[in-house]
Every structure is written in C-alpha cells, then in structure tokens.
C-alpha cells in the first residue's frame, strides 16, 4: 500500500516538474516574440502571418501542458482514493 502512496506522490511531483519546465520555456518563447512583433513592419504580411501561427501554436501547447498536468494529478488522486477505500 505504501508503494502505491509513493507512486501517487512521485507522479504528482513529476507532473508538477514537467508542467513547470514546459511552461517556463513556453513563457520564454512568448516573451521573446514581443520584440520581434514590434520590429516587423505592418506591411510584411508573411512575417505577420508567421507570428500569428507561432501565437496559435503556443496557445495549443499551453492547453496541452495544462491538460496533461490535470490528467496526471487526477490519476494520482484516484490511486490515493483507491488506497484509502482499501484501508477501510
């Protein structure tokens, strides 16, 4: 039973770690785009479109990271619940 509890805890810690690392890198990309956005002239349509695509991809990646984190935490919680009911 303790092995399961350890597993749930490790799983949550790993989920936090991964989300934190990915969001940090995504945040760096997002902040680093801002000076480029200011530098690209309004009439450079190809570069403007490229920035839009990066924004959209960043948005999707953030959603994926959040969803994966929530799923991992939900599984960890389910393991803990199962363990508690087995104890009773």
């Amino acid at each position, binding site marked *: 039973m303790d092995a399961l509890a350890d597993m749930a805890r490790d799983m949550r810690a790993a989920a*936090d*770690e991964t*989300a*934190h*690392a*990915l*969001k*940090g*890198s*995504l*945040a*760096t990309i*997002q*902040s*680093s785009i*801002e*000076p480029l956005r*200011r530098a690209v002239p309004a009439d450079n349509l190809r570069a403007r479109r490229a920035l839009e695509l990066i924004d959209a991809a*960043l948005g999707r990646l*953030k959603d994926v*990271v*959040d969803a994966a*984190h*929530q799923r991992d*935490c939900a599984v960890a919680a389910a393991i803990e619940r199962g363990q508690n009911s087995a104890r009773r």
Partner: protein
Amino acid sequence: MTTLQKESASTWSNSDLALAPSATGQADQVESSTGARVKLVLVDDDADYREAASAELTELAFDVFAFASGDEMLEYFAQNNDADIIVLDWKLPAGLGIDLLPKLHDRGIRLPVMFLTGMPATAYESAALDRGALDFVDKARGVPILAKRIRLILDSHRRARETPAKTALACGKLTLRPDVSRAFWDNKDVSLTVTEFNIVHLMVSHAGEHVTYRSIYDCVHHAGFVAGNGDEGYRTNVRSSIKRIRNKFRALDGEFAEIENFPAFGYRWRTGPAQPA
C-alpha cells in the same frame, strides 16, 4: 551574486531600454494611475526566462532586478536596496518560492509578493494566498498580463498607504485624526509632520505589538526618506525620527513614555489597543 546575475540586474535597470521611450507607446498603456516606474525584484532560476521577461517588463516601464535564487535576492535586500514588489518563481532550486516568505518577513521586508508558476493546480494557489502572497500568475499567460496584475496590486497597495483609515483613533491620552494627519495628546496638537504622523499611526495601529525598523522605514520612505550608509543606515534614520517624535510629545508632557524600543528589532506603542474615537 555571480557576475552574470550582477550584470543582468544592472543591465536591465540601467540599460538604454530602460530609459528609452517605448517605440510602440505600449508602456503608456500600462502605466499605473501614478505613472511612476516600478522597481521590481524577479527571482527565477531559468536564465532565459529571466532575460526575456526582464526585457519585456523593462519595455513596460518596470526597473527589473533579476536574481537566480532566493539567497541572491535576500543579499540584495541585506545591502539596503529596496523594491516596490517581489515576483517569485514557484519552484526554485533550493525549494519552493513560498518558503522565502517567512525569510522576508523575519528580515522585516513587507513588500507585496506575487508568484509565477507553470502549474494550473488551484491547491498551490490557495497555499500561496493563505501564506501571504498577493497574487499567483501562470507564467505562460505572458508578460503583459503579469504587468497589468502587478500594477493593479501596487495601485491598491498605494491607495491603502496613502489614504489610511479616515476614522479617528484613540489610545489613552492620544487621539489620531488621519483625515488631517494630526495627533493630539491630551487634546493638545503635537505638531507632527505628515511623515512623523504616519510613523505614530503605524505604531498605534499595532499598539501593544512591536513594529520593525524596516516597516517604519517602509511607511515613510516614499515621502523622501533617504537611506543612510551601510546595512544599518535606515535604522539610524528611523531612530532619529523616533527621537524627534518623542521630543514633540515630551514638550507637551514630561512624563511621556509610550514609545518603547526593542533593541535590534523596532519600536512599539506601549498601551493599546487603539479604539475608534
């Protein structure tokens, strides 16, 4: 501090970027109602994020002092530097950013603290808020959102500081009238300056408890209170302000002994608690 961090701290605060007007005028859009540049301490172990976020915040009218660890930040404050707000990464190499809150508190640093995180979990959010953080922002929401939330926090903080409760306070022979920044001892005007009044108001609001040198200093240093030399410089300034305040009370009442010193920590207004007058 390593050379790199020293460089990043001074680069972002003194660079041309910091002084140049924003090319897009974006800085003007997020200026707070007071329009002042904000001195921000950022602690994040990710050097790339530190660089990118510092540059964007600088663009948005912040003077950023960025550090890779809590210890470097504490060292910055130990050298008598100040700031308007602290932004801490949730996870730092030496532990959680939240564990720095008691360390700041122990050193008498009562600045608003915000957390940056990569995790959406509300459990952490409530832990941070319960332990005294003022806000909790997902890093990936971007610097403009972060900047807006910082301005909101600072504006409300400033309003709270600039317009102390308008209700008069009574504490023994003392009456405080915050609406006119005047203190009366036995119904006689003590003739305190506004700064001296603010110090007395701070002590009386916590009557019976000690207030630190640092919080006395913080309650007035925006009003032109200049730090002295060295680590202990501000204590010397606080001591001389307290001395002036005591002398004004003693001019009215030779027996006056309400302000007690707790060496190396601060002062307290002896009797309390204060009641609405």
